[in-house]
């Protein structure tokens, strides 16, 4: 395993310390239990937005703590959901009197740990569960679909509503709406290496890709031969468009997300290919995001997320945000 680290035990701690020091104008890191909060206290009466999940997806979620987005993030160990004490401690620090909204990706571990936190803490809380990964079949008999990159879209938009005075109920309901309006799907060209494991989570042949991959190196829908970018893009888009039932003249956010090890040039190439296909279908790209936002350690790969937009969502997408990893309008 080739990584910049000193020992796998200290990996997370040192990385958090670096993050905390490099962005002390925006955030403050707390340790044992680990959580990241804004360096400025929550405004009285503002709903506190808290997210969290396993580490290894950086900049998600710590990179999105700051004005206009999250109030706190709780990083678990690499690919392991955080534990209730982290959410409880973070809540105590950032609660502003209007309750706490948890944004949780739909994984058993995350759900159970966030649920236990809400049960054990005193104040009011609600939870938005994201499950945008259309690679997985949805069903009420199963865990359902994974929450992946659209979580960031939810965090941005709900963060804006909270900033502008939305109530806990309104934030929860807008979050659910953004999640419903979003679909994602990813593809991996290489595996990732969990530091504690020291070796790749899965093996891909030199001409293979994992289609519909998750963000933890979990196997996807199927293993395919590597295909031209335009074909990959079309397959990802087809699945998402069908799921969201997108139609001519619908407005969307096109979000091309890197898994961590794929250079920007390739992500922009995917954006170009996606734009060609969406233009052909007369689906209007009115907002864009391209970059490594919801990653899987050093995995080479990318995902596409589409979010169907309306006036409300566009307004909250455009509003100012000031975090380590996303900053505009300020």
């Amino acid at each position, binding site marked *: 395993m080739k990584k910049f680290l000193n020992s796998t035990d200290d990996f997370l701690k040192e990385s958090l310390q670096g993050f905390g020091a490099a962005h002390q104008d925006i955030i403050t890191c707390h340790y044992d239990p680990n959580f990241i909060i804004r360096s400025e206290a929550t405004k009285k009466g503002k709903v506190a937005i808290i997210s969290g999940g396993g580490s290894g997806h950086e900049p998600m979620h710590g990179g999105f703590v700051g004005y206009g987005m999250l109030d706190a993030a709780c990083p678990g160990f690499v690919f392991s*959901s955080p534990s209730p004490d982290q959410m409880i401690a973070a809540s105590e620090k950032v609660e502003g009197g209007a309750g706490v909204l948890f944004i949780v990706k739909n994984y058993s*571990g995350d759900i*159970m*740990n966030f649920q236990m936190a809400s049960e054990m803490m005193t104040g009011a809380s609600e939870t938005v569960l994201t499950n945008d990964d259309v690679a997985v079949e949805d069903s009420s008999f199963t865990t359902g679909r994974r929450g992946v990159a659209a979580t960031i879209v939810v965090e941005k938009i709900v963060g804006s509503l909270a900033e502008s005075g939305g109530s806990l109920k309104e934030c929860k309901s807008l979050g659910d709406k953004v999640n419903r309006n979003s679909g994602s799907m990813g593809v991996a060209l290489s595996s990732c290496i*969990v530091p504690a494991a020291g070796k790749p989570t*899965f093996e891909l042949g030199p001409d293979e890709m994992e289609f519909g991959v998750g963000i933890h190196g979990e196997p996807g829908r199927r293993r395919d031969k590597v295909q031209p970018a335009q074909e990959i893009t079309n397959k990802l888009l087809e699945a998402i468009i069908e799921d969201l039932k997108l139609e001519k003249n619908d407005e969307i956010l096109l979000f091309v997300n890197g898994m961590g090890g794929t250079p920007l040039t390739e992500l922009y190439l995917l954006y170009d290919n996606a734009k060609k296909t969406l233009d052909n279908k007369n689906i209007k790209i009115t907002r864009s995001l391209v970059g490594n936002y919801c990653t899987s350690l050093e995995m080479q790969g990318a995902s596409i997320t589409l979010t169907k937009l309306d006036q409300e969502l566009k307004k909250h997408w455009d509003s100012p945000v000031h975090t380590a990893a996303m900053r505009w309008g300020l």
Partner: protein
Amino acid sequence: MSNDFLIKNAKEIQVVIDNNAPEIEKLDQEIGDGDHIFNVQRGIKLVIELEPIIKHLSMSKALNQIAMKILSGIGGSSGALFGTLFMTMAKVSNIDNGVDYKKAINMFADGVEAVKQRGKADVGEKTMMDVLIPVANCLKQGVEKKKDLKDLMREAIEEAEKGMISTKDLLATKGRASFLGERSKGHIDPGARTSQLMIRTVCMSILNT
């Protein structure tokens, strides 16, 4: 059951889990995200480190300390699930004045029931519940039928093994493996495997006393 018993078993479980670590790691890589073995190893280590603290505590306080340590120290599904197991056992009434094996079995069964509520998974969904629920049932029935303790331990070991093996051909409908759909078949569930190993270790240690 005593606090010493808890720590002694935690130490034995550590040896067994370490010996089977490569296999368990592989299981969660195949149908999960590969962290299960590290989660479990970290949790056991933390529990064993509690020894000096819980040595002189009452059983309920000791179990609660263990539960909190597991809950906060592991994370992931297994942290919540194993944490719930111990938290529930700690809450069973009247355990600070001595726990005989009937009581211990009831505590375990209550714990498993709480885990089932927490994870909303039943037998047949390819999770640790395929080990925990059958074992809890077998133990409870054994107590009702007043079976010999050692026979019961041997039965529980078998039941755990059967449950663990059964997960291999199941289609996962809960937990991370469920995302794989049909591709989840053909692999043993990692949580079922660690649960089975832990149960076997505890039962063996009772058999050997």
